């Protein structure tokens, strides 16, 4: 099965890059736009082969490609997907056509460069999720930084340069730490093979330092409280498509890093620092929600809501049990969809009114009912209304968190109240009440057109599909998660077993000394 399409992952990963090259070569903005869109659509369709050719129940890596890249250091070009990464790849390939289509409609400035950067970004993002070699992972991780830096800095809002530089320097400081961590791991084990490292025993000191370095890098990316302050700036300034991708996919590279690397490769350190990470995650849930409540700019509000949502994802990952981790993986997808859709909706409104200030709106339900109704569905998805996607992820994460440490589940559940509060507050200000500003009335404000609906509806459908049939996803996620947890448990057990004689020896010495 998995052999039927050779180099499938390479094709999916690098199709956008090829597209980017062609986009820069063809003349004419129109051609560039449609070519970019076609590239992302083809990439999406090809990526669906991962789903259709998936070997159900198989826990290991599928569609594996593995060739030596740089022999002296054992660096390999190794790709593969499993239940942990499959849906992150699909999330990326799903969001890209929408983001690009949005840009086709609304971006006019330096189209060629813009589209090329978007496609470059897609390659980097997919690469992160399919890389099985640490160096390869790092290359893709870093490669994603540069296009996003330019997208914000060149196509962003008023304060774009500040936001772009901050985004770059902050996440890049994290990357520098990751270099350190990768080198620590390599010198300690002599391997860059992520899967092999998950099974390896490492001395506690190495684990601690490497874990902390990786964690800091990923915590900035996620972002985990208190490393989140670059995010609102970046989101507020980023162009809409940039925000969709930034929230939808880029942030997941942080949580994915925790899940694929930091937590399983350094299990003892992860266990030691788990409560700290869980605390930060829960603080992020509550703090992000409270700060979101006070925002006047809708984009800023959605950005802080991301801090809260990714707090849930982190909490599930730290719990390191089946419900928590599987829930987290689904919640990464959910957040990508819900928040991506929220940014899309905000963008559509911005194109009409050229403002995102909540105070500028009011009464939209009367003037643009289709837009408002869909906005409400998106908001409810984000608020975790059961029946839609968000609930499944949040609930299973809380289930996992409770069985990790009950207090975290209690605090996370309190976040559910706050989520309703800030989302309905935003909805109240935007959509309800009277139309006080003539710019918002029926004559001036147009409801969604067909093209715009075509971007929103796929999200809505997925909200319901995931909300009602999450097992379509869990069936593929669970085996890999359970295998990962088993490996981790075995490694931990070995480590304890290895320690026991040492303890006994120490006891003997202690007794003899007496």
């Amino acid at each position, binding site marked *: 099965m998995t052999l039927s399409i050779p180099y499938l992952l390479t094709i999916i990963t690098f199709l956008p890059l090829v597209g980017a090259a062609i986009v820069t070569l063809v003349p004419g903005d129109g051609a560039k736009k449609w070519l970019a869109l076609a590239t992302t659509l083809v990439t999406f369709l090809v990526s669906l082969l991962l789903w259709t050719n998936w070997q159900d129940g198989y826990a290991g890596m599928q569609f594996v490609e593995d060739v030596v890249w740089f022999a002296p250091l054992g660096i390999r070009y190794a790709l593969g997907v499993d239940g942990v990464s499959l849906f992150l790849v699909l999330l990326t390939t799903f969001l890209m056509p929408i983001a690009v289509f949005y840009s086709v409609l609304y971006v006019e400035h330096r189209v060629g460069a813009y589209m090329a950067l978007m496609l470059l970004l897609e390659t980097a993002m997919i690469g992160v999720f399919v890389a099985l070699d640490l160096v390869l992972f790092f290359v893709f991780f870093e490669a994603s930084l540069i296009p996003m830096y330019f997208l914000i800095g060149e196509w962003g809002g008023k304060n774009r340069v500040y936001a772009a530089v*901050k985004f*770059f320097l902050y996440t*890049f*400081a994290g990357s*520098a730490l990751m*270099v*350190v961590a990768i*080198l*620590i791991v390599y*010198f300690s084990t002599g391997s860059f093979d992520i899967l092999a490292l998950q099974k390896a025993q490492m001395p506690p*000191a190495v684990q601690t*330092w490497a874990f902390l370095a990786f964690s800091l890098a990923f915590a900035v990316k996620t972002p985990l409280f*208190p490393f*989140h*302050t*670059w995010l609102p700036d970046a989101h507020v300034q980023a162009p809409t498509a940039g925000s969709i991708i930034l929230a939808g996919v880029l942030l997941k590279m942080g949580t994915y890093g925790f899940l694929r690397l930091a937590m399983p490769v350094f299990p003892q350190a992860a266990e030691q620092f788990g409560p700290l990470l869980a605390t930060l995650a829960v603080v992020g849930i509550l703090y992000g929600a*409270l*700060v979101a409540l*006070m*925002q006047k700019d809708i984009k800023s509000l959605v950005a802080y809501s991301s801090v809260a949502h990714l707090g849930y994802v982190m909490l599930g990952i730290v719990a390191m049990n*089946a*419900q928590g981790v*599987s*829930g987290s993986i689904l919640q990464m997808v959910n957040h990508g969809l819900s928040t991506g859709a929220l940014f899309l909706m905000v963008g559509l409104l911005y194109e009409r009114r050229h403002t995102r200030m909540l105070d500028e709106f009011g*009464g939209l*339900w*009367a003037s643009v*009912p289709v837009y408002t109704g869909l906005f409400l569905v998106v908001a*409810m998805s984000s608020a975790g209304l*059961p*029946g839609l996607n968000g*609930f*499944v992820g949040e*609930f*299973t994460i*809380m*289930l996992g968190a*409770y*069985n990790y440490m009950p207090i975290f*589940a*209690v605090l996370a*559940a*309190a976040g*559910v*109240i706050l989520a*309703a*509060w800030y989302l*309905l*507050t935003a909805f109240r200000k935007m959509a*309800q*009440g*009277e*139309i006080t500003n003539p710019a918002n009335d029926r004559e001036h404000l147009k409801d969604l057109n067909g093209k715009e609906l075509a971007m929103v509806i796929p999200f809505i459908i997925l909200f319901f599909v995931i909300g*009602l*049939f999450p*097992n379509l996803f*869990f*069936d593929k996620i*669970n085996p890999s998660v*359970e295998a990962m947890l088993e490996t981790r448990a075995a490694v931990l057990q070995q480590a304890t077993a290895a320690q026991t004689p040492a303890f006994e020896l120490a006891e003997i010495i202690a007794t003899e000394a007496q």
Partner: protein
Amino acid sequence: MFDSVWLLFAFPALGALIILFAGHWMPQKVVGWIASLAVVGSFVVAVLLWLGLLALPAEERSVTVHWWDWITIADFHAPAAVLIDPLSVVMAMVVTGVGALIHIYSIGYMDHEPRYQRYFFYLNFFILAMLTLVMSNNFLGMFVGWEGVGLASFLLIGFWFDKRDDLYGWYADCGKKAFIVNRIGDFGMILAMIIVWSTLGTVVFTELNEAAHHLAPATATLICLLLLLGATGKSAQIPLYVWLPDAMAGPTPVSALIHAATMVTAGVYMIIRTNALWHLTVDAGLVTAWIGMLTALLAASIAIVQTDLKKILAYSTVSQLGFMIAAAGLAAYGAALFHLVTHAFFKALLFLAAGSVMHATHGVLDINRLGGLRQKMPTTYRTFLVGAAALAGIPLLSGFFSKDAILVVELQKNLALYLVGVVTALLTAIYSFRAVFVTFHGQPRDQHLYDHVHESGPIMTVPLWILAALSIVGGVINLPFVLTLEHWLEPVIGEHEKIPLVLELLGITISIVVAVLGVLTARALYLTQEGWAKQLAQSFAILRRPAENKWWVDEIYDFLIVRPLKGLAGGFAGFFDPKVLDGAVNGVGVALNDAGEAVRKLQNGAIPAYALSILVGVVAVLFYFLFMG
């Protein structure tokens, strides 16, 4: 036969979808009838399911229809499945039966409403969610309905989202308040579900019943108290009842359907459904009973001084829900469900009759502007009178039997609770007939208003008559000593606890006396306005101001919870985040920038700095391995 239970859901789902996508092109009446017929269809299915159960021997009356595996992770399973048993079919029949009548009534009531498609879409969606709530065979499925009805409630309370008045403020704010306050209750529900699964390994109700005895009493108490928090949200009890009076901002048929007859009883239903857990803990039950009775008393004390007819009915609903919750807390599940059913009849009737008044007065429900309406609205008057009499507990009406059933249990189990119950029952009789007398008797207080009043058309009065008939004879489903409903429920709630005959008779006697006394008091106070009654009222003057101000509960919550939280959020958003956290980040940035000035003379831009930091990193690692390793 039971496999066709999907039709129960398919009708309202289809109705909602048709209206959503095609309602725009349909005449108003057609939309209303599509929605109504959808619910009638569901009602027929519910009755067939009931007959299907009847045909089975009692011990087999629990049929699970499995649709699909909803959520599965390792040993966690939550199916999408329905449970057809004596409890769920009773609930389904009430929801769809009363629901159908209110849909039909709405065709007349909403005839001037431009957004009628939206209205009927919401209403059908509500029925779908409510059926999900009562039919799901597991906690999580129930919770889908639980929050779904909350969404419907939010949408319908704020139906006139661009409207405001002195009584409610912005209607949209009322809807928002309802949803958020309910989420506080849902916080309890979520934790309860998590603990149930973590301790019992299942969220399926039938499996739960079998496994429950493994639970430590303390855990059971914890779970039940968390469930109680959920119930206080949805069923509007202390401390979370504050959303329900404001929910009256919604269209009156919505108040009848969602905020009186069906959705607000979800908490009572949930306790009955999870009774296996409640059997393990006396403490939680007692807390629940007290919460219920104190809510009943508090709400009755507020109802008696309200001047808006719908607000009177709203506080009355809170109060009557208190009775049901208390009965459930005392493990009198049969009595709780009995009152739930009769209350659905007579309170829906009262609201619809009030709606008929409102329809005639173009929105005026201030009883100080009404009066003497009985001549002009005879049907509305008569049916309202029936509803009020049932609410007041006038003997032989449905409400008399069901309230008495609860009071007798209290008499048997806890005298203090019973005393609160009796006082509340007295207040109930007084405020019910205050509403009758002031609205329909006496002289018109606003002649202009009175002149334009007219009786509603048959599409509204026929549902009134049907509900009035049910409010009168509804008691037969569970007459004292016969107890048809309680026997029917035995497969779900177990054997009924016998009540000594003496207590039963004593209770009935006191109930009759209280009801009659209450009506006579109301008559003296509000109709004939006798001197002694005025003096009596005078002696309670000290309580009047607090009651009129609803005991300042909203203000207290605002002061103790909302403001501090907003202050905290404001501090985070205005100071801590931008100044402290981001300030630190930018501070580090500036410091590094200064340090980098020297380097910058040679190099420029980010990429060289990047290379530099990699170099620094490599050096650091080498250092580590040379000296530490």
